[in-house]
């Protein structure tokens, strides 16, 4: 288990990269640190690895305080974005190198390297140098180097970002399977929300050195705790429109919608994903009226951008149903998928009374029972989170 408490990192010059982070990562859990560039996710990973020393706060790994332990004494293995393989050593030497540092006898470490290489389909490449390998192979050697030392935790710093798009999908599946088989606690840094949704048991969304939400992929996807998370998660950006609750209805961008239960009168921000809207060719009261400005082909679907007054509303429509550019259209949000924010907090739908999947804003949420328990909200067939056309 990795436990962070009050972790703060301030760089010289006053930049606060980490701002009082609390998080507990259970044994065998796969946690993704997700956020835009500069949000502190890589700094957090490097702090866990011991490459950065926190300004304050503590890091415990399996109960041992490692806050000031050097990187080699933490029993974690890091995989770098650019792999950082040693170019002057062959694949075997690269994989076995951390073992050599730990004084594992030569025969044992070579056996371990060969065994790990076989598991990652690298057996044919053991005598090659990193420069003679393809990007995907280099990535697997980097993984093998981490796997071979049987660490307590893997720390991955965007290990898939240097692969081309197709290879990235393969490597992603491979990585998830490997992590399941080995059952090693994993922290994975990414700026790709699809990668985080696909891989992680839990996602910690970060912004400006803080966690904006920590939760399972479906929690984070279905019930983003604030508008930042809402806008960041999802393969198409969520529509976030200002509106007001009053007179028993919700008015937003020209549409009159049923009043969300339990939300007092006043201004709100209405959020709905483009995937959860339908396009109607005829006027409706519960729809955003607009003119089709752009139609983007996503493959199995189309992303339609409507100009609704001064606002843009995006809708995903199935293949073959896309409207012509310039025509009038009405975007109808599905009421069971609507999110209502007030003061940048989710006020509707509220968490299910049994407390399953409370959005842990600010971090510190204990891991949900497992990564598969869908939250109570919604209830129908789960959307293929992150598996949308991308």
């Amino acid at each position: 288990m990795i436990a962070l408490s009050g972790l703060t990192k301030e760089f010289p010059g006053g930049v606060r990269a980490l701002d009082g982070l609390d998080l507990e990562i259970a044994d065998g859990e796969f946690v993704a640190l997700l956020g835009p560039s500069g949000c502190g996710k890589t700094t957090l990973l490097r702090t866990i690895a011991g490459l950065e020393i926190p300004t304050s706060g503590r890091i415990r790994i399996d109960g041992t305080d490692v806050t000031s332990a050097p990187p080699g004494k933490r029993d974690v293995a890091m995989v770098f974005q650019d792999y950082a393989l040693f170019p002057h050593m062959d694949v075997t030497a690269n994989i076995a190198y951390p073992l050599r540092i730990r004084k594992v006898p030569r025969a044992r470490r070579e056996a371990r390297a060969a065994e790990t290489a076989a598991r990652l389909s690298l057996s044919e490449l053991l005598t090659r140098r990193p420069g003679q390998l393809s990007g995907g192979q280099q990535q697997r050697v980097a993984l093998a180097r981490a796997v071979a030392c049987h660490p307590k935790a893997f720390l991955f710093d965007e290990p898939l970002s240097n692969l081309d798009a197709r290879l990235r999908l393969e490597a992603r599946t491979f990585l998830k399977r490997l992590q399941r088989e080995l059952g090693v606690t994993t922290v994975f840094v990414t700026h790709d929300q699809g990668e985080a949704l696909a891989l992680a048991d839990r996602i910690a969304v970060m912004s400006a050195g803080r966690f904006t939400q920590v939760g399972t992929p479906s929690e984070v996807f279905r019930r983003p705790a604030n508008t930042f998370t809402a806008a960041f998660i999802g393969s198409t950006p969520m529509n976030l429109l200002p509106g007001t609750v009053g007179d028993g209805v919700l008015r937003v961008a020209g549409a009159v919608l049923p009043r969300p239960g339990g939300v007092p009168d006043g201004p709100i921000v209405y959020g709905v994903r483009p995937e959860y809207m339908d396009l109607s060719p005829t006027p409706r009261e519960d729809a955003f009226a607009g003119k089709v400005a752009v139609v983007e082909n996503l493959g199995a679907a189309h992303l339609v951008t409507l100009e609704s007054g001064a606002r843009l509303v995006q809708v995903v429509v199935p293949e073959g149903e896309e409207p012509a550019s310039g025509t009038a259209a009405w975007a109808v949000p599905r009421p069971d998928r609507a999110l209502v924010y007030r003061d940048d907090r989710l006020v509707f739908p509220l968490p299910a009374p049994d407390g399953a999947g409370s959005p842990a804003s600010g971090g510190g949420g204990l891991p949900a029972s497992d990564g598969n328990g869908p939250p109570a909200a919604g209830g129908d067939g789960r959307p293929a989170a992150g598996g949308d056309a991308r």
Partner: protein
Amino acid sequence: MDDLIKYAPDLLAGFLENVKLSLICAVLALVLGTILVSMRVAPTPVLRAAGSMYVNVVRNTPLTLVLAFSSLGLSDTMGLSFSETPRTNSFWLVVFGLSAYTATFVCEALRAGINTVPLGQAEAARAIGLTFFQSLRMIILPQAFRTVVAPLGSVIIAMIKNTTVAIAGGYLMESAFVMRDTFDDTGVSIPIFIGLVIAFMVVTLPVGFLTNRLASRLAVAR
């Protein structure tokens, strides 16, 4: 031409002294240069300051002054002595001065090589648990050396030719001094000049050729 043939044995004996100086100084300069560069990139400010001060002072002092200081300053005045025999003593004083001088150039060539090694390499080494000097020795320097084999070749070639100013350190056996000595008897002899030039080229050309080949063979593919 007759002069060259007549004095060939003396000149050859002198030239062998140049070769001897070169071999010893090359080894010492490489070792000392590596130690210097380790200091210059060390995380300890004191080591860094000492390293860069040494390089800046010695590299910017003319070699003849370095050698003169070794023999007149260190040996005659301050009593540094390698041997009772004056000849042997001055030989090692020249070795001392020339190695100390060449090491600064080795250091700077290596430092350029270290700068070509991506920062991630040092990070990866640190993440694995290597100390600074372990990662320098096993990860950084092996890669740095490979990228600067050719420039190091130039440094060594310059050093081989610099053995001809050994007289500034009081060592009177090497070929350039022998040559001037023979000129006292024969007058200036162009063939002797050319003969010595060829002798040096026989040594330095292969050094350049070999280091170039080694450079392309060892080049680190990333």
